[in-house]
Structure formats: structure tokens, C-alpha cells
């Protein structure tokens, strides 16, 4: 069943009344838990936005914060503290889930900087030829033909070893292209993390394009896998 939750945001610490920096989940003065701050996922971990992350360090910090914030620690606390613990821990978990995954992390950082990415902005109709990366146009056209043939053959209960081999070859090729995209993304991470404003803007543009390409390739590989597995 659903329950309606209320949100309330005091300006100063609710417990000791000392005003505090908004992006902290604990009062620096009295250590009491605070309502979720308006900060981004990086600030939850005390980080500036960046793309090369020390994952071991992130996990360690996730565990450390979980121990302090988790609702299990507030089972017998006041109603407000229990609500804040719930909201803070949800924020912590959402942040960790997003930042530990390289692609989610990249997408999140780009969105923070105003980029429009994701299914709703691109790749919605992946059969639309205008969305196909130019260098793949010919291969994608041929692949789609083969996929159609394969589905038709399957429907008839027939097996076409040559077609199968050709599809598996195509899949291997697209898998390889995916690896290349990931490699290029990592190169852009460095440029973004270390660059000045101009370099960052350029890297952002590059990454948006790479993520589009990646999503496109991923869908292709999924189509092939599904057809082969059917």
C-alpha cells in the first residue's frame, strides 16, 4: 500500500539550531542526522563531479555512510529522525547505484551539465535510418536483412548454418565496436576531469555522441542475441 510522505527542510540544524552547510547529512556541530540536502550525488560522498572514480574508495565510503544513516540505526528514534534517515539513505543508495556504474555515472554527470541524453531523446526508433551512425549504415542495413531472414527461417522450423555463422560474426564485430566506444569514453573522462572549461565542453559533446553510439550498438547486439537465442 502507498503512504504519502511529507518533506520539510529546516534551515538550521533541527537539534542544536546551529546553521550548517546544506550539503551535509550530519550536523557538523552536534552530529545529528539532517534532512536530505539539495546537493548532487557526488556531494553525498564529499566528491566534486568527476568521471575517474576510485571504486574501492567509493564502496568503502558507501559502507561507512550506510552504517551511520541506515534506518536500522534509527528504529527507536524520533519520527522526524526516522523519516530523514529513510530519505538520506535512499539518496545515498541512489547515488551509489548511479556512480559505481561507469555508464550511469557518465550520463548523470552529463545531465548535471545540461546534456539531453537517454532513450527519450535518442534511439527511440532505432530503425529510423537518420539515427544510424553514418559509418555503420551499410552493415546495419545488411544485418537487419539477415535478422529478418533468420526469424523467417526459425518460424518455418528451418536451420541455416551459413546465416547463423554470419550473424555470430556480426555480433562479434559489434561487440568489438562497443569495446572501442568504451575505450574512447575513458579517454574523454580524463579530458573532462583534467581539462579547463573549454576542454570540458568539447569532452561533453564527444561523450554525448559516444553514448548515443553506444546505445545504438547495444540495441543491435541485443536484437542479434535475442534472435539467436529464440
Amino acid at each position, binding site marked *: 500500500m*502507498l503512504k504519502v510522505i511529507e518533506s520539510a527542510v529546516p534551515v538550521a540544524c533541527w537539534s542544536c539550531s546551529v546553521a550548517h552547510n546544506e550539503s551535509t547529512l550530519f550536523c557538523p556541530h552536534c552530529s545529528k542526522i539532517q534532512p536530505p540536502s539539495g546537493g548532487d550525488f557526488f556531494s553525498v560522498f564529499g566528491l566534486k563531479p568527476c568521471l575517474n572514480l576510485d571504486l574501492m574508495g567509493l564502496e568503502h565510503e558507501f559502507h561507512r555512510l550506510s*552504517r551511520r544513516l541506515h534506518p536500522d540505526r534509527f528504529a527507536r528514534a524520533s519520527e522526524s529522525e526516522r523519516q530523514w534517515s529513510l530519505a538520506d539513505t535512499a539518496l545515498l543508495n541512489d547515488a551509489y547505484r548511479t556512480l559505481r556504474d561507469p555508464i550511469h555515472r557518465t550520463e548523470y554527470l552529463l545531465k548535471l551539465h545540461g546534456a539531453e541524453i537517454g532513450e527519450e531523446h535518442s534511439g527511440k526508433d532505432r530503425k529510423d535510418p537518420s539515427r544510424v551512425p553514418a559509418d555503420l549504415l551499410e552493415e546495419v542495413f545488411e544485418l537487419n536483412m539477415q535478422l529478418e531472414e533468420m526469424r523467417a527461417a526459425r518460424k518455418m522450423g528451418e536451420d541455416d548454418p551459413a546465416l547463423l555463422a554470419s550473424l555470430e560474426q556480426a555480433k562479434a564485430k559489434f561487440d568489438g565496436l562497443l569495446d572501442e566506444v568504451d575505450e574512447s569514453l575513458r579517454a574523454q573522462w580524463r579530458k573532462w576531469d583534467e581539462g579547463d572549461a573549454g576542454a570540458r565542453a568539447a569532452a561533453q559533446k564527444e561523450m554525448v555522441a559516444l553514448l548515443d553510439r553506444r546505445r545504438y550498438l547495444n540495441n543491435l547486439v541485443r536484437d542479434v542475441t535475442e534472435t539467436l537465442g529464440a
Partner: protein
Amino acid sequence: MAEGRVVGIDLGTTNSLVAFMQGETPVVIPGVDGSNLVPSVVALDPMPADGSRPTVTVGNSARRALIETPERVVYSVKRLMGRGLGEVQRELKFFPFRLAGDVQEGEVPRIQLGELQFTPPEISAYVLRQLKRNAERYFGAPVTQAVITVPAYFNDAQRQATKDAGRMAGLQVLRLVNEPTAAALAYGLDRAKEGTIAVYDLGGGTFDVSILKLRDGIFEVQSTNGDTHLGGDDIDNLLLTIALDEIHAEHGVDLRQHPGAVQGLRKAAIDAKIRLSAEQSAQFDIELPNGDRYQREIPRGVFEQLIEPVLERTAAPCKQAMTDAGITPEQIDEVVLVGGSTRIPAVRQLVDELFHLAARGKKPHTDLNPDEVVALGAAVQAEILAGTAKNTEDLLLLDVTPLSLGIEALGGVVARIIPRNSTIPASATEHFTTGVDGQTNVAIHVVQGERELAADCRSLARFDLKGIPPMTAGLPRIEVKFLIDADGILQVSAREQRSGKQAQIEVKPTYGLTDEQVESMILESFDNAEADFAARLLIEARNEAESIQSKVELARQHPAWALLTSDEQKMVDAAERHLAKVKAGSDLNALRQGIMVLDQATRRLAELMMDAAVTEAIRGKTMQAAGEDLDEELTAPHPMAPAEFK
């Protein structure tokens, strides 16, 4: 409010248990009969002559009523928790209970028990109240707070129904904990292990698999999967079907119309299943009225072939859980077995193959009793929440949501907003707008599941965002926050951002009781003040004494009484006289002692009666069936549908 102990409760399909932390060790609290397991069976005593409400009994005594008054007994009700009418109707094909005649689509189904009707949470509440009483008797103090375990794969409605049951039983449910995770806690407590463990939990009615990473006292669930329709019950049904079919074919007797006989046969099937875990074969040997015997040898090989399709259904969830956790079987350091059905050798064989154990020189962990390990883990979690013990203060459980949360988008497609296996609490914020000028309402449909179309997922709730200030279409920006709490239950809040107005939400849960309904179903109880509490314990003990006395009186009329030796009969007589004496006084401990002694003195008598009941029920039924055969087609009110097997 005085903060007493927090207990851990395993509310199982077949059996339920209550446990607590005694110092640094979790222990199960036994019931009055000395048994750790309370069968999750609820029976309604006969209607009193004065027309007052009949007493509800729980556990072993209720189980005895299964054969004599099956229409007044309900079990395995966990399978019905949080389910809609259609689902319950499908489920009931395999059980002898009836739905109340007037249940409407959209309301919580009610079960007809004798003259009365109960929702599944109410029935569970009676089981919980029994466990609560057992704990209170043990501590001599009120117990008002508990941790209750649920299958990891339970959805939102099933979780909420379980919490409702706790509230009806007078328990504040501090946390719902997933059963496999609880088991991992019980195992991890004394070993301070690091590594990856898989928990394979095949219970009476549900199957769960969870993969956890243990590190620095943090139990972090990586993935979970399962089937809330798979368990030991399914195996019982297979054996039962064979026996019913063969008795019909070979002896011309169709027992399906007679719930009492079916229950007797079910007990024989369960006994056979249990024997087959230790022996190479088991027998059905039941006397039929025409002097024939139904004798059936079931070699273990045949049994294993029979149950293979059931066991095979646990393989896919295990593989999916490993895929979701991003690991291979080789990366799993330990496997923990939970649930009575994991005693079956074929199950252990399957687990071995799934996780490549023997090949790596490993064995699954079975050192804790698979029936008790979940309750023990719940006690550990209870202690973590109470925050009073040293050895649990560094432990923390990070669990996940088993199913993806989504909202229905245009064209009935699901837009996933919180993916499955996200650590909980988890949240997602979505923005909605209007499609028509001046529109003041937006309807939102929330679903749970992995399918592409909302119609194929489980409907969680529909709600309306109301009071949106009239604006041009597309201009309002309503922010809705979805939050799955630490119990795995959804909470929603909404705000219209341009006007800053808190949008009103009217939530219509697709399944489940309203707050007012739950309130009205709270089981009557005495006040928890200390003085009243002592009086209440005495009253309860006297009621219990009366109940056992009247049962013994009845049993004296039963043919089984004559089968006791004269020494055994004398012991029963003496125990009864003693109980009558202490019942007149007000010494609570003496009274409890008296109840226990009489219970023990009549244990063999009860067993003899149970054994006789199988044969008797069949005999009684056959005469009845013969009469019906002459007159009309057999129309059963609730026939046993044959289970499918190849």
C-alpha cells in the same frame, strides 16, 4: 512507552517460529507444548451453544481439527497474502478452503471458516498472536515490537499484508526482513566471514535465492530472485494426486469430494516425502473399508523423477540471480540451505550442480536447522534494531528490492524508474504534466515487475494528482517522488513545482486493506499495563487448561483410548486431576506446568488418534460417497484439482 524486547518472527507457509537474542546467541522460544515450530494452521472451535463467538485455535491443536472439521480449518494462508480475487481462486484449487460467497472483485478476498469470514491478514494475525503469547509467557512480560520475515520475492502488496497482520496482532512491526537475508545473518553472526554467499531457500510455499557480499560486518545483497508459487506444498500435491488417482482407479473410490479424507491422505503423503529423504523407499499403506488396502511402494528414484519438474523451476531464478550479481558459480564462496524442502537429497544434488560445489571441494552449509535458521536471523535483526547488544552493533543488512518499479506510460508501456536489485531504501523522482488546457488531475498507474507492458506486470496502485492549478497544457510541472522503504514498501509524494503547491494524492491500492479496515480487524486484547498483564496471562492459561481438558474428555470416548496401556491411562488420569486442582488456584507457573504435563501425558494418545483418522476419514467418506453415487453426479464444493505432472 516502555521498550521491551524486540522478537524475531518467521511467519512461514507451513510453520511459524518466534526467536530472540539470549546474550549473544539467537534462540527459538518454544510453545506450551515444548515445540519450537507452531504450525501455521488456524481453526475455529465449534460454535458455543450460547451463540457467542467461537474460539480460534492455532498450531498443533488446530492441525488436529483438520481431519475432523476441515471446513473450520485453514492453513498455508501465506499463499493468499496480498493477492486479488482471481489469484486466490486459482490458488484455492489446491486447497480445501472456500472463499466467502459474496467477495467482489477489487476487495480483499475473505475465507469462509465455519460461520465466520476472515481475510488472509486476519488469519495470519492469529498465528502472530500465538507467537506473541508464547514469547510473553516465556519472558513474563509484554512483547509489542517485532521483526517479521517475508520471502525476498514478495511484492509490495504481500509485504503490506504481512505488516497489516502484525498490527492486527498487536505488534509494531519494526522491520520486514527477507527470509534468505535473515538466514545469512544467522550464519554470519559467529563467523565474521568475508566473501560471497548464495542462500537457496525452498520453503513450504515459496522459493527464494539471494546472493550476498559479506564485508566488515556489512551484509550487502547483490541480487535476489525467486518464485512465490513454488515450494514443498507442490511436492505434497504431486504425491497426493497419485494416491487419489490410484485409489480411484483401483478401488473405485473418488476421495476428492471429501476434504477430511483428502487431509488424512495429505498427511500420509507428507510423511512419505519426509521418509524418502532418509530412506530409499516409502509406502502408502491405508486400510480401505472393503477390507482392501491401498498399498503403494514409492522408490526414491520414482519420487525424484516425479518432483524433477518442480525442482527444475528453481534453476532459472538461481541463474538469473548470478547474472544480475555479475558473477559466475565459481565466485560463490559459500551456499546456505534454508527451508525444510532442502532436506530432500535431490534438492541438494541440484544445488551442487547449480553452484559447482562438489567440483570445487565444497559443500552447502546445513549446520543450522533449516526450519529454524530464518527465525534465528530475524532475532539477530531484531537485536540490531533494538541497538542494545555489543555483538550486533557492527552488523548491517543492506537489502534490495526484488522487482523493478515502473509507471505506465503512453501505449501501456512500462517506464522503469527503480530497477530490480536496487539497494533499499531507494527512490526515483519523475515529472508529469498535463495534456489538455486547464486540466487539474493527472492519473498515474504504478506497477511492479519485469515485463514490457503494464498489463503484464503487477498493478501496485493507481493514483490521482489533484488540485493542479489550471494552466495551459504542458505547463504544470508536477514532481512525484517514489520511495521504496527499508521494508520494500512504496511511499509516494508529489509537488507542483510552478505553483509550489503540494499536490494532493488519492491513492487506490490495487490490492490490500485500507487503514480503517486494518483498524477494525485488530484482535481484541487486554491492556498491556503490568498488573493487567499478569491477570491476562492467568486468564489465558486457564482458557488453555480448559481447552485441553475438554479435548482429553472427548479423547476418552475415542477407540484409540483403549489402545493405551493401563499405566498410560493412569498417567493421563493423574495429570488431569492435578491440572483441575492448579486451575482453581492462581499460581501461574503451577498452572502452566500442569498444562504441559497433561499435554505430554496425552501425546501418544493424540498420535494414535491421528493415525486412526486417516483410515476412518476414508471409511466414513466411502459410505457417503456410495450414497451420492446412486443419486447424482458428484459435485464437490471445492474439489482437489489434479496437479500436473508428466
